[in-house]
């Protein structure tokens, strides 16, 4: 029996080995190294010699990077921008992806086609998606302002206007992600036993009541999952910002990961960038932990 179990463990290791080696080489080891680098003034344009005492003599600066970051206005402003993004993005994404899931849940002609249609943005690369959205949001020639003009609204300059730029990025992000989250919600909807709805119908409940009392509570595990993933993704906001606004106009869309990239690869301050990454990790960890703790109060697993 024990021998069998050992064999199972070995077999499992065999199948896990390729991905584990990859994980160690390109995730775990750099992860650990970045922690060490975060206590140095290493620029990134000189060889990294972490095991040489002379490297540490000339580069070790203790907690200076961390204290500089926490004292800098830029860090808090970038965090605030991420917060603005979350406040706009998460509710909009939840409503639109749940809406899509409910639309696609009903058996209708062409449902398969529409499922594919909504999923295409998920498969599109951010580079292509962001360029499309730069056109859509163009203040002069963009389709969005054209539609708004037809109903008598003069649209803003979106990405060129500091007040609207983040909202422009939110719109593009919702378009890109709603297919993915919609699919998760669709899976959840398919799992709800129709008997509940029949019973509610017999008791005289309307559609809205059924949605509120059956659909939403039964979907809470999916909502929880979507919230965690979208929260983490919000902290990781980067490609759309780099392509659509490059953190502008006037720094209005400056966010943490964009700062990490610029400090590491443009300002040649890899130590500072590593410290920023670790602070971001702590923040994401804290938020995820809090959500895990709070889920007991509202997530229902009694499907």
């Amino acid at each position: 029996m024990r021998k069998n179990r050992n064999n199972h463990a070995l077999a499992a290791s065999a199948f896990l080995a390729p991905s584990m080696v990859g994980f160690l080489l390109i995730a775990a080891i750099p992860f650990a190294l970045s922690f060490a680098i975060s206590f140095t003034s290493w620029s990134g344009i000189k060889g990294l010699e972490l095991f040489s005492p002379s490297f540490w003599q000339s580069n070790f600066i203790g907690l200076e990077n961390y204290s500089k970051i926490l004292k800098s206005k830029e860090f808090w402003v970038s965090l605030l921008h991420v917060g603005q993004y979350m406040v706009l993005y998460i509710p909009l994404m939840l409503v639109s992806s749940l809406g899509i899931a409910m639309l696609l849940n009903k058996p209708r002609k062409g449902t398969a086609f529409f499922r594919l249609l909504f999923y295409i943005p998920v498969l599109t690369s951010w580079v292509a998606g962001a360029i499309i959205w730069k056109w859509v949001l163009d203040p002069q020639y963009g389709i969005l302002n054209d539609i708004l003009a037809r109903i008598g609204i003069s649209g803003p300059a979106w990405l060129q206007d500091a007040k609207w730029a983040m909202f422009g990025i939110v719109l593009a992000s919702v378009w890109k992600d709603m297919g993915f989250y919609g699919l998760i919600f669709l899976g959840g909807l398919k799992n709800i036993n129709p008997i509940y709805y029949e019973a509610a119908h017999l008791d005289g409940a309307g559609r809205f009541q059924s949605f509120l009392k059956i659909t939403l509570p039964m979907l809470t595990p999916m909502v929880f999952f979507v919230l965690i993933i979208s929260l983490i993704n919000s902290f990781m906001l980067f490609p759309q910002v780099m392509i659509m606004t490059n953190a502008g106009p006037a720094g209005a869309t400056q966010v943490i990961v964009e700062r990490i990239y610029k400090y590491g690869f443009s300002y040649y301050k890899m130590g500072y960038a590593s410290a920023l990454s670790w602070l971001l990790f702590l923040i994401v960890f804290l938020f995820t932990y809090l959500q895990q703790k709070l889920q007991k109060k509202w997530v229902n697993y009694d499907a």
Partner: protein
Amino acid sequence: MLKKSTVILMVILMVLGLFAGCQAPAATETTEPVATDEAVAAQPAAPEAEEPITIDFMNFSANEGGLLTLGLMKDLFEKDNPNIKINIETFGYDTYATQLQTRVGGGDAPDCFELGLDAFPSYVDQSAVLSLDDLTAASTTDLSVLTEKSVQAFSLDGVKYGMPYSYSTVVLIYNKDLFDQAGVSYPTADWTWADADAAALKIKALGDDYYGLIQPISTYEFFKVVKQYNGGLLNDDNTAFTVNRAENVQALQRLVDNVQVTNICPSTEQRGSLDEWGMFKLGKTGMIVTGIWAFPSFTTDCAFAWDIAVEPGAETKATHYFANGLAVSADSKNAEAAYKWIEFLATSEQVAQLRIQLGWELPCATYQTAMDQYAKLTPPANRQAVFDSLDYVVPVPQIAQFSQMADILGAELEAAANGSKTPQQALDDAQAALEAAITLG
């Protein structure tokens, strides 16, 4: 149930397979087979023939239509130097800085590489590139063909760290058809901004969607414009920021007024997703201040007549000088051979002529025949203005943190341009932010 030995074998095979997949790909952009270290070591030792050396050369400027030209230069060099093989690695400008930094930081620096003037001080500051003075002293090549300005651009504190490779300037490009329509005489080398702005107003009057001038409000433009007003972003020895001095505020005020008050320059909202070149190519903008690297694109895409003039000045004249240089890695094991290659690229007359014949950037080496060839190419008819601009050049500020400075100041300039801050406020805020973020000297 799997046998233990089978399972162990599977683990080994999978891990080996993974490492096989992870092996670094061979350089794909070399036309010649690259001699690997093993191959070199395996060659029988012939006392009379030196072992061939392979030099890794990383660059970005060949990416924009220069691959063929660089390949021809390599062939010329290898013919004269049979013991040196060049392995060319070319990356797009957008990814080049990251690629180079990763290679250097990862301890796998190419023997020699191209650097722009903005990144150059950072690499010197970190001792990532070699001082070339000793190598130059040991060489018999005549370096006097290189302009003094270009050599100075790649020297810091009197030490030469880079060979000037190619350069470009910024000029005033104007739409001749619009000048004719508005009845304004063409710009000349002695124009000031007052003349240009007056002409721009008349062109703007041609119609609602017409503009007189495109002049970016960015750090790269601003460090030069302030010099035209006798201002400056840094003090003389680059030890303190002087961003909010009165001359700079005056310079920014004019740029902002051109957008906000007279609107002879389109705002970013008015331009939308069109870039500056795209806007000019539409044929409804009188003038644009931009680099000579726009010539090929404007020649192809502009459906109107255009020409160039030396950029107007204010209190004095000041023009841009952007250069790309070649440096030898401080970690190179073949520094002498690498130096030989970059010296050849910078000073060879054949290289200079190839560059101009095949329309690939201006060489820093001033061979008269090559320059004459360049001056004859049209459009623009007044190509001489490119060389005339060199009389007024101001260098990119030589500080290691230039990129960060450009971003911080750029955000404040944008705020002034869109009217959310006054020029004085924006420059005061920039001064404070720069002092907080960057330690100079």
